[in-house]
């Protein structure tokens, strides 16, 4: 088909690309100027060799992974049950899943501090492990809209109700049905939700800062106040990590069940006639 050249569309796309890429390029360019008079990766070396960076990054990675596990265990069965048995409650659950986008994280943290502070029945903030638990719980809440939507969309795509009935008619228990039929078919949705959770939690500032935990978000802000070139290098590294995660997410989303990684399929996979 012969596509018509549209100058207006080209100008808009070019402007949008410039809007995103020019600041990124400027940041990258700036991050290379640590050594006077020449371009170098000194800022990156400085960041990556810092013990504080490694501790903060490791803390955030571990907390993010914990948030992903808790999020999946909480949201996947909830979304499954709502779709299967309580479809009338779906609008309400969807609304609840949107609340973290409306209520600022600072309100959430102050709520946590009031509920689990030193004077409460369950004083989680008085111990390190308790405060870490609150950080993970906070990450689960702020990633809820993304995780819920990813999993719910995945469920909409596979008709879980008929698949559940098919498995049960073959003698499978509800647990076996979830483990062997539902979850494997939600793999790409769960991976998408997991990467989104990871991206959001990794650079999160408010929760970690107000609960006074040594996470990556507060470290970034602190570094921005103390140094010039390292924050730019960290920003570029964060962008690169996010893009890699998005790429992996896309690859999972497009992958067919029998597709191997890094190898092109050569066997006949086309549709056959009846």
């Amino acid at each position, binding site marked *: 088909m012969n596509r018509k050249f549209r100058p207006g569309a080209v100008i808009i796309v070019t402007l949008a690309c410039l809007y995103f890429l020019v600041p990124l390029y400027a940041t990258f360019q700036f991050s290379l100027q640590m050594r006077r008079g020449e371009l170098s990766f000194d800022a990156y070396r400085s960041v990556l060799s810092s013990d504080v960076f490694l501790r903060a990054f490791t803390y955030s990675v571990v907390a993010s992974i914990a948030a992903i596990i808790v999020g999946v265990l909480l949201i996947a069965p909830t979304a499954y049950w709502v779709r299967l048995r309580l479809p009338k409650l779906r609008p309400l659950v969807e609304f609840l899943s949107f609340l973290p986008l409306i209520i600022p994280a600072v309100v959430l943290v102050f709520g946590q501090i009031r509920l689990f502070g030193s004077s409460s029945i369950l004083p989680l903030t008085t111990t390190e492990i308790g405060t870490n638990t609150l950080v993970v719980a906070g990450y689960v809440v702020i990633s809820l809209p993304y995780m819920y939507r990813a999993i719910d969309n995945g469920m909409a795509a596979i*008709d879980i109700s008929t*698949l559940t*009935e*098919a*498995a049960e008619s073959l*003698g*499978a*228990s509800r647990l076996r049905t979830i483990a062997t039929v539902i979850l494997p078919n939600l793999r790409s949705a769960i991976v998408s939700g997991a990467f989104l959770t990871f991206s959001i939690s990794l650079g999160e500032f408010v929760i970690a800062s107000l609960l006074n935990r040594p996470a990556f978000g507060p470290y970034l802000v602190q570094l921005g106040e103390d140094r010039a070139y390292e924050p730019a290098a960290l920003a570029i590294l964060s962008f690169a990590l996010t893009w890699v995660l998005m790429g992996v997410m896309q690859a999972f989303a497009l992958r067919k*069940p029998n597709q191997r990684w890094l190898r092109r399929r050569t066997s006949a996979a086309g549709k056959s006639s*009846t």
Partner: protein
Amino acid sequence: MSQLTLRSVFKSFGATAVVRDFKLTMRDGEFLSLLGPSGCGKTTVLRMVAGFESPSAGQIEIDGRDVTHLRPAQRNIGMMFQAYALFPNMTVGENVAFGLKVKGVGRDEREARVADMLRLIGLPDLGARYPFQLSGGQQQRVALARALAPQPKVLLLDEPLSALDAKVRVSLRTEIRQIQQEMGITTIFVTHDQEEAMSISDRIVVMNGGVADQIGTPFEIYNRPTTRFVANFVGTLNTFEVKVVDPALGRVTLADQPLTLSDRPLGARAGDTLSIALRPEALRLGRSDAHETTLPARIDDVHFMGSVIRLRAMMAGVPVSLDTFNRPDVPPPVPGSMVEVSLSGHEAIVLNG
């Protein structure tokens, strides 16, 4: 092979009764169709047998065992769904083996059984494929193999052919019937397609408003419908009001012409008005000595359908349809022309409901 019995089963959703006093006894290896319009309760009956819905009252027995309150997984049933419902993450072989694995059948026996099943459905070489690599017809055949592999007591088919194109639908229904007869498995088939139900069933239950209006063989359902609904729903029907002359001898008049009904109008008295029905093939175009009565009719429409021509006409004050075989040497009547139509009382159905 198993018997299935439903004893006065009721089902309500809130205040709405969707199945009322449904009674059925199926013999071993019988193929029974639940036929009816959308919302008549046929799928609800099937889902209650499967265990996906619980009856509000009544009892369901498989082989004399009360399964009313058992979960679907405990009933030993096989089911085919309209939307295939193959597990997308599993190969064809794994799909067929699923029920066997759940039952704890050993690997060797499982593999042998899967191979047997794939041969039975005519797809012996597709065990390694995934559902998305198969056509709709192939997917539904795999669904049949998957349902049959654990050797269920009852096979339940929930409109399994509805999503397929016409040609595949016809060939697959014949295959399903052949496999069902070969395995001798008691089967319930839900459909709203009367031709489908007629062509493959031992018996048909015609459902209307949650009630089994009539249970009978396809021959009985078509030729001897017991209610007006069944008569209208199954096939095309011409309905006439006749005046009873002698109920004991079945004598009535239609537009002042005499007819003798084989189907005696029980309980009617002389002078009463009665509804009778005649199939399009029971009305003969032209005068015929073999028929009792001849009435004039005006042709309204002519539909050429190949070997058969369906005429729509106005006869005795009511619109009627009549079928006549196509004869290349005799052109059909033209719309607007007057013709004679012959009919006999012994082919008429007396409508009660």
